[in-house]
């Protein structure tokens, strides 16, 4: 696992332990990452969030 994470009420911070990069992710991205039910969002927002996670190399688990 290359990622460390810290959760706040308005989103999460992901830290890549290999590159040292730090990213702020909104609750939608975090939900997709966790495979949790995403907050109310449009298809376009979900698509954009999945692309963002993919670019960062973070998993986008299927919703539980």
């Amino acid at each position, binding site marked *: 696992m290359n990622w*460390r994470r810290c959760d706040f*009420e308005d*989103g*999460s*911070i992901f830290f890549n*332990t290999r590159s040292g990069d*730090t990213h*702020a992710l909104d609750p939608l991205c975090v939900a997709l990452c966790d495979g949790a039910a995403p907050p109310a969002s449009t298809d376009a927002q979900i698509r954009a969030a999945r692309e963002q996670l993919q670019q960062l190399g973070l998993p986008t688990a299927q919703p539980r």
Partner: protein
Amino acid sequence: MIAKLGIAGLRERLRGPGVNLQCGPLTFSLRSTLPSLAPALATLYAHHPLGCDNGFADFHVAIERARGPRGWVAPQVDFRFDGERPFKPLPLPQALAMLEWGLNWCVAAHCHQYLIIHAASLARGEHALILPGAPGAGKSTLAAALMLSGWRLLSDELTLIDPATGNLSALARPINLKNASIEVIRDFSRAAIFGPQMPDTLKGRITHLQPTATSVERAATRAKSAWIIFPRYLKGAATELTPAPKTQSFIDLAEQAFNYTTLGETGFDALAALIKHSTTWQLRYSRLPEAIAALDRLAC
């Protein structure tokens, strides 16, 4: 205490064995043959203790006249660190500014036992307030006004956070004020004690404000971050203190940290803990007394 040396005694020590200046957990060994430095240091560091005379210091620095033919036309000064000259020389009248900037560099470039954030920090009891800020945001002006209103100054430029405990270490060094801020603070409090003014520096007209005796005497008192305030001075703006999102605050603080990347996971953990245990705010202000009142209410 530096004040007990007197100007003549301080000048003699600077020219000879050096002065061990204790700033919180750090000791600076200062040397200089420039006669103008002693009165300025006697004013600005009056309350600071002298470090032990056992030869140990974290940093050995000197401010000396630069050599070379240029010195006959426009005298310059060098900042020396362990015998090296890491910076280009500056005009002689800016010797004090060069020393202060040089001391900042010593800490920011070497003290990686701390997470170092470009921010002012002050404390009420054991609860600290951190004021990060881009240049022009009003960070130092606000820090000066808070200190003169009874808050304990921890640092003006460099907030030092122990990654293991989250405690902030106080340096309580003089506050650097620029341009119109000098008059703002002069008008704000008659208790303000300034060093000499230096016009035409890289940052404009600057001076330094002496830290209060309490700030220096209580530098060893433990303080943990309770409030992180992102100030923004806007001419004519009403005072507004509003919650700031924590994720964005994390990113903003990481960008203001000198060694977040250097520290790797240790830096991430330290910053995460800092944000978790603090409330985060944006402060928009134009009138200092109102801004101070808003922060005082927050601390009650």
